[in-house]
């Protein structure tokens, strides 16, 4: 099954905390492309960049539209 296996965790033993995640084999659901993105890392990276861009744009928006700000 995709959510089991690994050095520290037996095949039938579910993992209930992050400590038991160590040493497990990669999950097939986490591998491979996600839509237009090559991997999940790219998806997460894009979301993080998006979050920073939104803050940047709103800061710019505030500065441009508010003449009261020095």
């Amino acid at each position, binding site marked *: 099954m995709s959510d089991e296996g690994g050095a520290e965790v037996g095949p039938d033993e579910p993992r*209930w905390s992050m400590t038991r995640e160590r040493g497990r084999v990669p999950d097939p*659901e986490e591998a491979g492309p996600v839509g237009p993105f090559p991997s999940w890392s790219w998806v*997460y990276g894009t*979301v993080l960049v998006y979050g920073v861009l*939104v803050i940047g744009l*709103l800061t710019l928006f*505030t500065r441009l*539209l*508010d003449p*009261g700000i020095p």
Partner: protein
Amino acid sequence: MTGVDWGVFALYFLGILGLAFHQSRKNEGVEGYFLANRRMPWWAIGLSVMATQASAITFIGTTGQAFDDGMEFIQFYLALPFAMVVLCLVFVPFFYRARVYTAYEYLERRFDAKTRALTGFLFLLSRGMGAGIILYAPAIVLSVILGWDERLTILVMAAVTVAYTMVGGITAVIWTDVVQMLMVFGGIGVALLAIFANLPEGVGVADAVYIGGIQGMWRSIDLSWDPTNTYTLWSGLLGGFFLFLAYFGTDQSQVQRYLTATSLRDSRLSLIFTAFLKVPMQVLILSIGVLLFIFYHFERPPLVFSPAELAAVEASPRAGEMKGLAEEQARVHAQRRGATFQLLEERHRGADVEAWRETIEGYDARLRGLRAEAKGIVAEVRGTASNDVNYVFPTYIITYVPAGLLGLLIAVIFAAAMSSLDSEITALSSATVMDGYRRWIRPQAGDGHLLLVSRLATGFWGLFAMGVAFYAGQLGSLIEAVNQIGSFFYGSLLGVFLLAFFVPRATGTGASLGLLAGMGTVFLVSLTTDISWLYYNVVGAGVVVLVGWGMGFGPSADGAREGGRA
């Protein structure tokens, strides 16, 4: 409301009921009722996640807040994309792979039964209250628009929502949420266009944006470090991050949504979808409030929007005082209106408008002062804080929006409320049945029996929400009320899950005591300091993790850990 408006309104109700009953045929047993047999597509879940969070309060309270304070509330949402990444990486895999029905069921597997019982109980308490407030918000609208009794409105809306939720379960809830969320997107567009269309001749979109700018209404980012300032970039990023982790990661009304996905991948995609759409949607909703503020430069707004609050003052010895304030407001508003036209004329000619800008700022400060004085009188007469912000948007749409569109916007407000209420009562029902009834009362109950109990529990929570809604009128700004209620519980609940995921030494006893300590600390902090309520989540989570981690070194910790995983 005209016949056309009523037609649009009726069409919405019939369409939602038809869709819900059609979808209810797909349910199979209690797993179908609570988890849609784990076969929902990610985009539908994503829209349902957004619909659950965006209630009518979002439409009514947020626009009113932006009318009074500008765009600063947007900072509350800025941590959402970051929180979604952490949720996808940590929370979602644990819940999805554990094949649980509720988030609290996971805690029993990691800790023990008492941790599950305590967290489940706290969820029921806080979200039961929250469901009542969600129900109350559109009742305000109809009490203003149609002169309906608030309680009758609550009763009608709850009856329809509870009916389709009882019959259709989560499948009906998610598919109706999809339609309701699309209606909300449409409603935002219609509201914005209606405001622009109602601007006076000669005043364009660029002029409107400019007027908002010179009065600081577009100010979206506040970089000040003052922890008592409710909405700053830092309170939003830190407090908001913890609040969103807690809300999307520990609140059953959200966890239940992504547990319905066909795969872990789809669960994650539903949250990524929300990460991209939520902030722009909130920007647009807040913009409606700011544009209303600008619109009311050209049309005189009521000094107090709430007819009930105004009536209470008019029937009191302070009526004369309020009348004086209203007359003063009319005079200053006329001066500001004239100055605004002058400023725009000068601006169109390319002249220096600094003097006009300062003049308008002066009038605006006076008008804000008059409104604050009026709200103060309302508070003194009624003995509770004014909740006038919630009447700004409804008053606008009944006064200025044309027939047909009015019915659509009212239907949108109802859609927003019902899409949140249905999710809440399904989640409350799932926690009641799976964490309470099946766990403690009838562990051997068959699927048919559990399905019947689940439907009854859904009905019970609908009634409970209705009871709370009857008394929700005393709670000030609704949007803040819901979030503040959540803040007393959410941070501490998050702390328990962080212990579960990241602190291997943590035990059930440590987690439970930590939870109580966290909530107690948040309560003390709220009583003794003026820090923004957004930081309560950080405090609550921090205390729980510290206490739980510390207790993991206790003499009985090893035995408790082993017992908890048995």
